[in-house]
């Protein structure tokens, strides 16, 4: 369903992505590995459409993602290095707005998602008072709430304790079991018990 072919991308003087191609289908997980600076984040951002590749194409369900950006993004959830949250709002408010702009969302849905990621106890505190790990749990609840088919996760386990790492693994497993797709950049192993996992190692530029 997600097909990336012949991606080339330069950042200033560095040829970061050199001819990257892969295909991921429903129920599959692609783990991007490689050293720091190998272009994992760049690749994720290019797939999401935040970066404009010099050459190559990202296509979703057979059509170029660039041409039907709205439809593609409606089915996509992207979680970058830092949790995209406003410090002056509570976790719950953050989700109400960030999900609300995508779809109508009920308060109990938000509650359920926060429960699942273990963010419920601190969901009503301003985000700026939360630890990095707590923010990540709120942000993961946001990813669940999008209901997106395709998840793009950049180092989803950073700042999380071992408990949190297991949580990420189980969330990914559930997403795959439901026929979703996950593309994740990782530098330590994710223990995915089930589901079909493909590894893609990016060479350092």
């Amino acid at each position, binding site marked *: 369903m997600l097909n990336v072919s012949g991606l080339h991308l330069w950042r200033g003087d560095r040829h970061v992505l050199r001819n990257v191609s892969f295909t991921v289908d429903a129920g599959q997980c692609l783990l991007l590995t490689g050293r720091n600076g190998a272009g994992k984040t760049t690749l994720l951002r290019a797939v999401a459409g*935040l970066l404009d590749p010099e050459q190559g194409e990202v296509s979703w369900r057979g059509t170029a993602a660039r041409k039907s950006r709205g*439809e593609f993004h*409606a089915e996509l959830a992207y979680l970058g290095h*830092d949790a995209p949250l*406003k410090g002056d709002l509570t976790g719950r408010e953050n989700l109400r707005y960030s999900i609300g*702009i*995508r779809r*109508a969302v009920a308060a109990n849905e938000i509650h359920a998602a926060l429960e699942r990621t273990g963010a419920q106890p601190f969901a009503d505190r301003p985000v700026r008072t939360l630890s990095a790990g707590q923010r990540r749990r709120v942000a993961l609840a946001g990813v669940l709430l999008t209901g997106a088919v395709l998840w793009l996760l950049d180092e989803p386990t950073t700042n999380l304790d071992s408990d949190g790492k297991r949580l990420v693994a189980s969330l990914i497993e559930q997403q795959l079991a439901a026929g979703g797709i996950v593309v994740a950049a990782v530098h330590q192993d994710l223990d995915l018990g089930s589901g079909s996992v493909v590894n893609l190692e990016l060479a350092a530029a």
Partner: protein
Amino acid sequence: MKAGPLQAARLVMVRDLRLAFRKPSQLLQPLMFFMIVATLFPLTLTPELSRLRDAAPGVLWVGALLSSLLALEFLFREDAQDGTLEQFALSGQSLTWMLFAKTCVHWLLTGLPLALSAPVAAVGLGVPAEAMWSVVAALALGGFALSLIGAISAGLTLGARRGGVLLSLLTLPLAVPILVFGADATQRAITGGEIAPPMYLLGAIAVLGVTLAPLAAAAAVRIGLE
């Protein structure tokens, strides 16, 4: 169920207003800045009201422009830094509508309060009481156009170092027509003339701005997020 573009825009507005009211001190800064600028003119020019009256349109409009610029820097920058702007761009919704919503909030929080409190400054500049409604109307309409133009430059400077000065450098030449027509409307109001012609032109610029500026701002923001 996917939310419509207007629903998304409404939520962005509610969010930005709520965020602004969590920091009330920051909210008042542009207004206070405007008042200080208006106070400096009598101190540096002359205390005579009859002479200040001639300078009043210039003082009001330059003050309005500068305080609008002051708040403009934060229009997209904070959202870009904490990653929420990126999520807007990836929401599958029209970024154009959402940025238009943010621009409207910028006007509601700077341009509109400034226009409403302008009579206080205008009295001190010798503007006659019967001109006040026109002064407020011109500043409100012109302020809206300024916010729209400013949104483009705020988007363009997202990816730049030292965005602050650059933001002014980009905005000021583009704002010339708004200043010309706005100051003319104010001038006519003070001298008891017909303010309709410059107000129509100001309105035309605002309409043009509503149709084109959010599009340009969305293009600029997408480039800035790269």
